[in-house]
């Protein structure tokens, strides 16, 4: 059931449409990420939910009531910003208590809630500290505690981790997900980091140029990208340009690739075959029992820790393939190799 719903919402900045006809529903207690490159409209969408931007068209409903014209301080949406949003003149306790104090909660309740929130973000002992005495990660946890203290109906997070360094970022995103599940709070999370979005969300909405490219579970987004944009933006995908031969075959250069061709694509129409690098096997000699074999020369070898990524030149097309680092097989630059991948690892889509 839809708890938070955006109905055909659009927002223009001058002649430029930042968000076009955005239509999406968030179930109660779900964690949804808005993912896309900068300027795709994800932050504008979040700011419209928070009430900082007014949609030019469409409506936003929360728990069945239209909140499109409700001012931001009466929406009951808790928001965590990218950085530096704690009040520098107040200590941690006062920051967390702020939302309760301005809305006139009794003192005893406030003290209890502040303790509860600081325990939730595991920073019980920082109540008397000032924001500038905390690390970036601690500041964001306090910002989260402050946003949650008012018991918001929806929690909004605007790239809360992007100002932090990598280690803190990974730890804190786990922490955010833990807290979200513990409270069962409906959450909308904005990020440009696909790994972040895939790792913590129930659903991911991929946006590009103000439009929704695809919405679905992280697995769907990764395994069945609906558009070339999604395929290119999420993870790494090889894109092989070919022509449909029949329902199971695509011609790529001189090679026939076996791949499931969707019924919407006609014979001899131009298509792209997507293959993830982890689905591709690398052979030092021509394999005899494999499908979809491509022959080429190694251009690059990149060591990435758990895997080694090979860049292979296939008659002018660069294809990347991953090899487990534990694999003993040694390859060298300019070595002649054969690549293979199963038909069900391929996804065929129109070239457009």
């Amino acid at each position, binding site marked *: 059931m839809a708890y938070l719903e955006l109905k055909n919402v659009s927002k223009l900045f001058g002649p430029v449409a930042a968000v076009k006809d955005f239509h999406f529903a968030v179930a109660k207690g779900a964690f949804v990420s808005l993912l896309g490159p900068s300027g795709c409209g994800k932050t504008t969408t979040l700011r419209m939910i*928070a*009430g*900082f931007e007014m949609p030019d068209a469409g409506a936003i409903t929360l728990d069945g009531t239209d909140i499109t014209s409700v*001012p*931001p*301080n*009466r*929406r*009951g*949406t*808790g*928001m965590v*910003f990218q950085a*530096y*949003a*704690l*009040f*520098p*003149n*107040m*200590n941690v306790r006062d920051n967390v208590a*702020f*939302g309760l104090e*301005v*809305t006139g909660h009794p003192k005893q309740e406030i003290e209890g809630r502040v303790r509860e929130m600081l325990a939730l973000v595991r920073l019980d002992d920082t109540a*008397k*500290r*000032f924001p*500038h*005495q905390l690390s970036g990660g601690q500041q964001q946890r306090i*910002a989260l505690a*402050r*946003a949650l203290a*008012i018991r918001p109906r929806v929690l*909004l997070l605007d790239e809360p981790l992007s100002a932090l360094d990598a280690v803190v970022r990974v730890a804190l995103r786990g922490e955010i997900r833990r807290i979200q599940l513990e409270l069962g709070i409906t959450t909308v999370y904005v990020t440009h980091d696909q790994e972040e979005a895939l790792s913590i969300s129930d659903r991911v909405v991929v946006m590009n140029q103000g439009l929704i490219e695809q919405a679905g579970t992280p697995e769907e987004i990764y395994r069945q990208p609906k558009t070339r944009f999604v395929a290119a933006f999420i993870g790494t995908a090889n894109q092989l340009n070919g022509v449909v031969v029949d329902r199971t075959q695509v011609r790529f250069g001189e090679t026939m690739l076996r791949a499931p061709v969707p019924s919407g694509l006609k014979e001899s129409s131009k298509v792209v075959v997507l293959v993830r690098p982890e689905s591709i096997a690398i052979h030092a000699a021509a394999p005899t029992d494999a499908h979809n074999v491509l022959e080429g020369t190694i251009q690059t070898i990149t060591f990435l820790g758990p895997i080694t990524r090979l860049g292979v030149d296939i008659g002018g097309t660069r294809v990347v393939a991953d090899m487990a680092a534990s694999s003993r097989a040694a390859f060298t630059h300019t070595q002649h190799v054969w690549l293979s991948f199963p038909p069900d690892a391929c996804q065929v889509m129109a070239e457009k």
Partner: protein
Amino acid sequence: MKQRPPVLQGLLVALFVAYMILPIIATYTFSIATKWDITLMPEGYTLEWYQTAFDHPYFSITLTNSFIVSIAAVLVGLLFIVPTTYWVHTRVPAAKPLLDLLMILPFGIPAVVLALALIRVYAFPPFARSPFLLISACVIFSMPFMYRPISNSLMAIDVHTLTESALSLGANTLQILIRVIAPNILPGILSGSLLVFATVFAEFTLANLITGASFKTFPILLVEFTRRDGRIAAALSVISFTVAWFASIAILWVSGRGRKPTEEALGAR
């Protein structure tokens, strides 16, 4: 950077100090001199001029009046400038250059012109020649001194994010202004207040033309004494300096107190 020879450097500093300090020392000395005209140093010392100043029936009246006008100008100025500047910074940033320009205008209008114009426009009671008109004129006259530091302080903090955080937590505009914005631009508010206080306290032209004898301020008394006896005028100047210094110290003390909790928290770490 090019290093100046130490001798030249010392000389420059000495010249600057002499330029700034000598007139003050001379005024102080003159205010306690019995006679000081043809000798290098005064012929004798006395506190008689202070006695004369204190005994003058208008001394405490004018001092009080000047305090009333200065403090009122600071308060009215704060009341107008802080919300306006905040509003322009957050809601209509495009109007900022216009506001900057408006706030320089008082510098371009001579006090005489401002005073005469206001007297003609507000020729009806209760404004005509009243302290209200004087305070209003002083607010306009000192506006740039209040605006600049506050505007700079607002630019130094992330007004947008702070405002939006407070909004999302349910605060209204007044609560945001008082509890979030004002404390974070306190240095600007304090230095603006100090500048306005000092400027208005020493203001003569506006007071003399608008209220004149009906509501005498301290500088008017000072000028009157200049015509009678320079030594009494010097004593009044010293008192005026002292007031300004006390005001500065008071403001520095208040701002120091505002920073204290931070230091305590640091110590606890």
